[in-house]
């Protein structure tokens, strides 16, 4: 009975291992694509940027997506999921610094462009990240060319949003303008396409692959423990069985010896 249980556990374990191997290959592909894009971005770096790296990290960065851990009731192992924080929630986080001087040098029109880009991102969630960025980029360039028209539109959208059930419009608008938690902005307003492609790769890896890999690793750990426990149980049972057999044999042998002894006496 214990052997069949071990077999079913191992079967489960192997299917998890299979998924793990596939995801590993997927992660490797994503990572290599990410590194290629980064290298391309660095090759054609914008003037003023030496290398897209740690020199430009925002020292007060805040995570835009958070991990959610659920303990699965079946296997009693954690399952990880990465959840994107809505921009408003990210701004409302207590850790969020009140004012961001890094934004000081950006003039207001650039901030509006960011706002507009975020609005568009929210609207077209069905589209993929890379495509989004492309469109946003086109829009940014558009707004640079004929700033008045597009900005006017952006402003209008902002106003309609704030008018919806809010007494203090202005502070909220300012707050919305100030925050820009897209890490791409560390490297400037108009970032090169390869850098945005690198970001898309990284997002895929971080949102889809890594949490699942971590969950699989934990599930496999749990199964390993169970298999070991069952194996121990089986070994114990086998030992006891062997002991019983030895006892039976001894008893039989003892009977034979006794019989022989009697024979000698007689």
């Amino acid at each position, binding site marked *: 009975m214990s052997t069949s249980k071990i077999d079913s556990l191992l079967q489960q374990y192997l299917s998890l291992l299979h998924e793990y191997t596939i995801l590993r290959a997927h992660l*490797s592909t994503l990572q290599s694509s990410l590194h290629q894009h980064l290298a391309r971005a660095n090759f054609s770096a914008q003037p003023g940027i030496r290398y897209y790296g740690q020199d430009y990290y925002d020292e007060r960065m805040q995570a835009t997506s958070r991990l959610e851990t659920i303990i699965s009731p079946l296997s009693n192992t954690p399952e990880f999921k990465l959840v994107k924080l809505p921009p408003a929630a990210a701004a409302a986080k207590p*850790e969020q610094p009140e004012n961001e001087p890094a934004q000081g040098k950006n003039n207001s029109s650039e901030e509006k462009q960011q706002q507009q880009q975020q609005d568009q991102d929210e609207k077209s969630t069905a589209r993929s990240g890379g495509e989004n960025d492309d469109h946003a980029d086109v829009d940014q360039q558009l707004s640079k060319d004929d700033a008045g028209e597009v900005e006017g539109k952006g402003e209008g959208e902002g106003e309609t949003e704030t008018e919806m059930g809010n007494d203090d419009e202005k502070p909220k608008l300012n707050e919305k303008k100030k925050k820009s938690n897209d890490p791409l902005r560390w490297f400037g307003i108009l970032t090169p396409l390869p850098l945005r492609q690198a*970001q898309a790769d990284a997002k895929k890896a971080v949102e889809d692959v890594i949490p699942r890999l971590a969950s699989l690793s934990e599930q496999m750990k749990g199964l390993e423990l169970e298999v070991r426990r069952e194996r121990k149980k089986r070994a114990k049972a086998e030992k006891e069985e062997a002991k019983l057999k030895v006892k039976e044999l001894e008893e039989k042998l003892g009977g034979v010896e006794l019989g022989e002894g009697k024979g000698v006496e007689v």
Partner: protein
Amino acid sequence: MASQADYKDRQFLAVIGDEDSVTGLLLAGIGHVTSPPDNQKNFLVVDSKTENSAIEAAFDRFTTERKDIGIVLINQHIADRIRYRIDTYTQAFPTVLEIPSKDHPYDPEKDSVLRRVRRLFGE
């Protein structure tokens, strides 16, 4: 296996890696610096000059000291530098995951999960 309080607050990923790997992952929006005066980062950029002790200290900080990290990502070639630490790590939280880097593709032989698999099948 794990208590409620143990995993509830673990909402960040941590990264120990080379500059490109860290940049890539931070671009995805997982970078976090805690509010002052702590200013604790959830990442460490490792280059050829970084001492092994610094890597180990960061690993300890992410796995034992900080209670808000759920997954620690580490480049495989950096994990090799503190392999004994990774192999003896048995805590339930956070989960440690090795990831490939630019110059060092993923090697299944070194992956701690696959090493566990081999151990289970008695190799």
